[in-house]
C-alpha cells in the first residue's frame, strides 16, 4: 500500500513538474530545428524561464491552426509549412491540426482568446461573413494588393472574400459538384449522359426498368438532400433567386420554391428513382450502392473519388446537373475553403507573410498537383492537370454563378431548419406546403428580427 502511494506520489510530482515546465520551449521547438535559446528542458520549477515566444532577436513565429484533418490534405499542409520555413528560416510555423468537426467548436475559443492562433483555415461565404461582421477577422486588403491577387484571382472569388470593399479572406481551394455515374452501366443500357431534364428522366426510367436504382443518396446527415435543393432551385429559378433566398430576401412559401418540389423533386421520389430508406445511410454508406452497381448515379462533390476504391475508379465519370430551363443562367455549387487572420493576432507581420505564401502560385500549384483540387489563383499552370481536373475546371468555368452550398450560403439556423424540411418532404412529399409555410416563419424570425 505504502509503495503504491509512494509510486503515485512520485508520478504526481513528475507530472506537476512536467506541467510546470515552460511550455514556451516545447511549443517553440519543431523536430528538425535547433533552438538557439539557452533553456534546458529539464529545468526545475523554480526557474523563471524568460523565453518570450515573440523573440525579437532570432525567431519570429506564426501560429497556424488548421482543420484539414483528412490524411492527404493534412500531409500537403505539412509540406507547405516546411517549404515556407525553408524560404524564411527566421520564421517558425507552429502548426496544429484539429479534427474538422471539432475545429468548428474550437474556433469560438480561438477568435476570442487573448493568445489566438494567427492564421486559421475556414470556409468562404456566410460562415466567414459571420465572424467578419463581428470584427473578429483582420483586414488583409493590403496583402491582396501587394500580392497582386486583385488581378490574378477570378472576380467571383474576389467577391467572395470582400466585405464593404475590403478583403478579409483568402480563398485557396475548391471542388465541384456534379452527378457522378457508372460509365459501364450506362454503356450496358445504351445510355448517354443526359443534358436536359427530359433526357435525365429518360435515363432514370431506363435504369429502373432494368432493375438498377437510378440514383443513390445517403441523407442521414441531411446535407446531401440540400444539394438537390440547391441544384433544382438554381436550375428552375436561377442562381440570383437562389442566393436571395439564402440571404433571406425571398420567401420560402413563394410559389417558385413550391414549384421546385412539386414539379421536379417529388416526381423523382415518387417514381422510385432514389434508393430505399436513404435516411439510414451516411453519404459514404450510400456510396456502397454505386460501387456495387446497384445504383448508377450520385449527386456529390468531387471528394467522393477519395472514398472510391482505387480499382473501381476507372468506371466513374461525371456530368453537369441537367439543364431544366435553357433560358436560366447556370449556377453550380463549388464550396471554397481558405484562410483568414484573427483580428487580435499577436504576430501580424509573420501571419501576413505566411498568408501571402499560401495564396502564391507556388503553394497553389503544389496543392493542385498533389491533391487534384482546383486552385483559385489563375496563374497556376494547368497543363499538368488530369483529365478529371480539367473537366471539373471546365464545368465551373462554364457556369454563370458559383454558390457555396446550402449550409454555407445561409445562416446555420436556417440551414438546420431547411434541411429538416427537406428530410420531412422526402418522407412525405404531399406535406410540402405545410413545410414551406413553417420554413417561411423561421426565415422571418431569423432574418427580419435584425
Amino acid at each position, binding site marked *: 500500500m505504502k509503495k503504491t502511494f509512494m509510486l503515485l506520489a512520485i508520478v504526481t510530482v513528475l507530472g506537476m513538474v512536467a506541467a510546470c515546465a515552460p511550455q514556451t520551449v516545447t511549443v517553440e521547438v519543431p523536430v528538425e530545428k535547433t533552438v538557439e535559446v539557452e533553456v534546458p528542458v529539464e529545468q526545475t520549477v523554480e526557474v523563471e524561464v524568460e523565453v518570450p515566444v515573440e523573440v525579437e532577436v532570432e525567431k519570429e513565429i506564426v501560429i497556424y491552426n488548421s482543420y484539414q484533418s483528412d490524411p492527404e490534405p493534412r500531409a500537403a499542409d505539412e509540406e507547405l509549412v516546411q517549404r515556407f520555413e525553408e524560404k524564411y528560416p527566421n520564421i517558425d510555423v507552429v502548426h496544429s491540426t*484539429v479534427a474538422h468537426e471539432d475545429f468548428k467548436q474550437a474556433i469560438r475559443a480561438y477568435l476570442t*482568446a487573448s493568445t489566438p492562433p494567427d492564421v486559421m483555415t475556414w470556409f468562404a461565404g456566410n460562415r466567414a461573413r459571420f465572424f467578419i461582421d463581428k470584427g473578429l477577422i483582420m483586414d488583409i486588403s493590403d496583402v491582396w494588393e501587394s500580392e497582386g491577387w486583385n488581378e490574378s484571382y477570378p472576380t467571383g472569388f474576389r467577391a467572395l472574400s470582400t466585405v464593404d470593399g475590403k478583403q478579409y479572406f483568402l480563398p485557396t481551394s475548391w471542388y465541384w459538384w456534379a452527378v457522378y455515374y457508372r460509365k459501364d452501366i450506362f454503356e450496358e443500357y445504351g445510355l448517354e449522359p443526359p443534358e436536359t431534364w427530359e433526357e435525365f428522366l429518360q435515363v432514370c426510367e431506363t435504369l429502373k426498368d432494368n432493375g438498377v436504382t437510378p440514383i443513390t443518396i445517403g441523407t442521414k446527415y441531411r446535407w446531401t438532400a440540400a444539394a438537390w435543393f440547391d441544384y433544382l432551385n438554381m436550375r428552375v429559378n436561377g442562381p440570383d433567386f437562389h442566393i436571395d433566398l439564402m440571404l433571406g430576401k425571398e420567401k420560402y412559401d413563394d410559389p417558385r420554391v413550391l414549384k421546385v418540389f412539386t414539379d421536379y423533386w417529388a416526381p423523382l421520389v415518387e417514381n422510385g428513382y432514389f434508393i430505399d430508406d436513404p435516411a439510414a445511410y451516411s453519404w459514404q454508406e450510400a456510396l456502397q450502392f454505386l460501387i456495387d452497381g446497384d445504383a448508377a448515379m450520385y449527386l456529390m462533390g468531387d471528394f467522393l473519388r477519395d472514398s472510391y476504391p482505387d480499382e473501381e475508379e476507372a468506371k466513374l465519370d461525371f456530368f453537369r446537373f441537367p439543364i431544366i430551363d435553357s433560358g436560366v443562367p447556370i449556377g453550380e455549387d463549388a464550396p471554397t475553403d481558405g484562410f483568414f487572420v484573427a483580428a487580435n493576432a499577436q504576430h501580424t507581420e509573420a501571419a501576413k507573410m505566411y498568408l501571402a505564401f499560401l495564396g502564391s502560385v507556388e503553394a497553389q500549384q503544389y496543392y493542385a498537383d498533389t491533391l487534384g483540387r482546383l486552385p483559385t489563383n489563375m496563374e497556376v499552370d494547368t497543363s499538368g492537370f488530369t483529365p478529371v481536373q480539367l473537366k471539373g475546371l471546365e464545368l465551373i468555368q462554364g457556369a454563370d454563378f458559383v454558390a457555396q452550398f446550402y449550409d454555407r450560403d445561409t445562416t446555420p439556423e436556417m440551414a438546420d431548419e431547411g434541411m429538416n424540411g427537406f428530410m420531412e418532404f422526402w418522407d412525405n412529399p404531399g406535406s410540402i406546403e405545410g413545410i414551406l409555410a413553417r420554413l417561411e416563419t423561421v426565415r422571418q424570425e431569423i432574418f427580419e428580427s435584425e
Partner: protein
Amino acid sequence: MTARKFFSSPWRVLGYAVLVVITLLWLVPFITAVLTSLRTNDDIMLRGFLALPKTITINSFVEAWKRGGLSKYLPNSFIITIPSLILTLFLSSLSAYALARFRFTGNRLIFFLYVGGTMLPFQVLMLPVFRLTDALGLYDTYWGLIGIHTAFQLGFCTFLLRNYMRTVPGEILESARIDGCGEFRIWWQIMMPLTLPAIAALATLEFTWIFNDYLWAIVLLRSDALKPVTAGLATLQGQYVMDWTVIVAGALLATVPTVLVFIFLQRYFIEGLTLGATKG
C-alpha cells in the same frame, strides 16, 4: 472454491451458463470493433461493415499510431490525467470526510452544492470556463485542463465518498479521538484505508473519464504539443473521409491504459483485501 465444488448443483450450472451467454453477447460490439481494426478500408467499402475480414492486417494500428501521433500525445494524456486524478481524489476525500462525519452549519448546503454541480451538461460550462481559463492566463496550458478536470470531478467524487464514509462504524473513529488522535491523522490513517474500495473504484472510473475526455482539450488548448491522445485521435476523422479501420484501431489503442488501470485496481474493490479492516 474449486470448480467441482462450485458446480455442485444443476441450478448453479444453469446460472453459470446464462452468465456466460450474457457476457458473450455483451462483448459482441467490442469484438466487432477489434475485427474492424484488423481489416483494410477497401475491404470494408467493398464488403460492408460486418463481414468477416478477408485479410487480416495490423496496418490500421500502425497507421493510427503514426497519424494519430500517439507517441507524441500519450505522455500528454498522462500528464493531464494523473495529477487531476490524484488531486480530485485527495480533495474530495477531505471534503467527504468533513461532510460525512461532522455536524456543522452549512453541511447540507455544501453537500447539495457538490451534487448540484454535477447536474449541468458540461458543454454549457465550456465557454464560461474557457473565459475563466483565459482570464487566469491558463489558456493553452496543462494546468488549465488539470484545473477543470479536478474541479469538475470533485462534485461526483465528494458525493460518492461522503456516502461511503458514512458506512464506517463510528466506534472506530470515536476510540481514536479519545486516544487523542488529531482529525487529520484519523482521516489519513483510519478513514482512508477503510474507504479504499470506494477510492479504488472511483480511481478506475475517474481515470477512464478524464483520460477519455477531449472536448475540454479542444476548447482549452491551442497548441499541438499539449494535446492529449483523444484529441490526436479525433483528427483521424476527416471532413469527408472516415478511415474507419484506423479510427477504430486508434480508439482501441486508447483504451489500453484504462483497461490496465482497471486490471490493476480491480483487486482493491474485490473481496479479500479489506475483510480484516471492516471486521476490526
